[in-house]
C-alpha cells in the first residue's frame, strides 16, 4: 500500500538543487528541477556509501560528491563509471506547498 510521507516544504529546496531527508532510519534525497518538478531517490550513491545531498545538481543529473558518479535523478539511471547500478527512485507529489514521497511497497 502506498504511504505518502511529508518530506519538506516545497520552498525548502532551491531550483536545481537537492536536500537530504531521513525517515525510518533511511536516507533519501529530494530534488527540485529548474522547472519546479520534484523528484526523490535513495540518499546514498550506489557506488559507495556517500550522501548525494552534498553533490552537484545540473541538467537533470545528480553528481556524487565523492567520486563524481552521475545519476539521472528523474529516472535513477546510472550514467557511467564509477556508478554502474541505478539508484532507486520514489514517486513525489506536492500538495499545499508540502513535498510528499511515496514509500509504499
Amino acid at each position, binding site marked *: 500500500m502506498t504511504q505518502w510521507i511529508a518530506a519538506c516544504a516545497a520552498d525548502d529546496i532551491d531550483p536545481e538543487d537537492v536536500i537530504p531527508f531521513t525517515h525510518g532510519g533511511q536516507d533519501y534525497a529530494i530534488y527540485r528541477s529548474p522547472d519546479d518538478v520534484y523528484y526523490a531517490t535513495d540518499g546514498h550513491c550506489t*557506488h559507495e556509501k556517500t550522501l548525494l545531498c*552534498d553533490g552537484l545538481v545540473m541538467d537533470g543529473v545528480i*553528481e556524487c560528491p*565523492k567520486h563524481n558518479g552521475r545519476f539521472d535523478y528523474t529516472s535513477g539511471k546510472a550514467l557511467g*563509471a*564509477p556508478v554502474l547500478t541505478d539508484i532507486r527512485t520514489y514517486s513525489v507529489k506536492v500538495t499545499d506547498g508540502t513535498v510528499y514521497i511515496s514509500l509504499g511497497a
Partner: protein
Amino acid sequence: MGRERLERYSLIGPENQAAVAAGLAGGDWFRSAVPRKRMKELMRRSDYPAIRDTVIWIGLILGFAALGSALWLVWHSWWAVPFLLAYGILYGSTSDSRWHESGHGTAFKTRWIDESLYQLASFMIMRDPTTWRWSHTRHHTDTLVVGRDPEIAVMRPARLAKLLANLIGLVDVPVAFWLMLRHAGGRLTAEEADYVPASQRRKVYRTARVHLAIYALTIAAAIVFRSWLPVVLVGGPRLYGACLFYVYGFTQHAGLGENVLDHRLNTRTVKMCFVNRFLYWNMNYHVEHHMFPMVPYYRLPELHEEIARDCAPVYPSLWAAYKEIIPAILRQLRDQEYYVRRELLPGAAPFNEPAPINDGRALPLATATLA
C-alpha cells in the same frame, strides 16, 4: 626489504584486509565546512575555461611539433631539439593533469568533450582509461591507505632508483607496454582485478588493442621512412618529456602521513606561478581537490580561499615543497615511521584522527591485527 615493502603496499597483500578490518577502507574523511550555497557556486561547470585552455594546449603541442619536425626534416638543424623537447614535455608531462581533470568529469560541462579529452590524454600518458579511472576512484576513497591505494607514488622506504629512472619514464613506460600486452591478451593483473569491476573489463582489452595498433603503426612508419621522427612524436615523449610529470606529481603526497583520514595530513597544496598552474591545471591545489573533488580545476583557487582557515600554511613554491620532500624521503629510508606532520593555523578544525592508527606513521596493520 624490497619484497617486504612491495608486499606491504600490494593490494593483494595482508595490509588490504587489515585496513578493511581497521575501518580505514572507505573511511569518513574530514571536510571543511563550506556553506551549501557557496559550494554550489564552486561546483558549477562551464565549458569556456577548459575549451580555452585546451585549444591553447593543443595549439602549442601542434605548433612545437610542426616547427621541430620542419627544422629536423627540411633543414636538418639541431634547432629542432628545443622545439621537440617543448613538444615532448607538453605531451609526456602535462597530459597527466588533463587526464586527471577530465577523468573526474569536472573540466567541461559537455560530457562528450570531457570524455574525448580523457581518451586522448590517457593515450598520451600511457594509461588505460578504464583501469585508471577505477584506480583513481580507489585513490580518492582510500588516499594513501597502505594496501588499498594503488596510486602511492613514494613508498616507505622509497624506491629511489625507480623514482629517478622514471624522470625519463624508464620504469613506467615498459610497465605500461607490459600491461597493454597483457590487457590485449584479455587479462588483468591481480591488483587491477581488486578494483576494476568485471563488467568493465572488456573495454580494457579493446582499448589496449587499439593503443598497441597505434604504436605498431608508429614503429612501422619509423622503419619505412628510416626516421626516428614518428617515435619522437608518438610514444617517445612519455620518455624524454616525462620529467615535469613526476616533478609536479611528487608534491601531492610524498613524505606525508599514511593511513590517515584527513587530507590535511597526507596531501600538499603548493603555490605555483601562472605558467606552472596552466601546465598542471591547478592540480597544485591538491588538498582542496581531495576534499572536494567535484570542484572544477578553474575554481580551485577560490575553494582554496574558502577553506584556507582550516589548513596548514601552503608551500610558497615548488622549491619550498622539495626542500621538505627530499629530506623526508631520505629520512624514511631508515625510519619508516617518520612523516611530515603539518601544523594547522590557529582556529582551524582539529585533525580527524579517530584512532591511534590514524596518526600518519602507518604502522603495519597486518602485524598489529595478528598480534
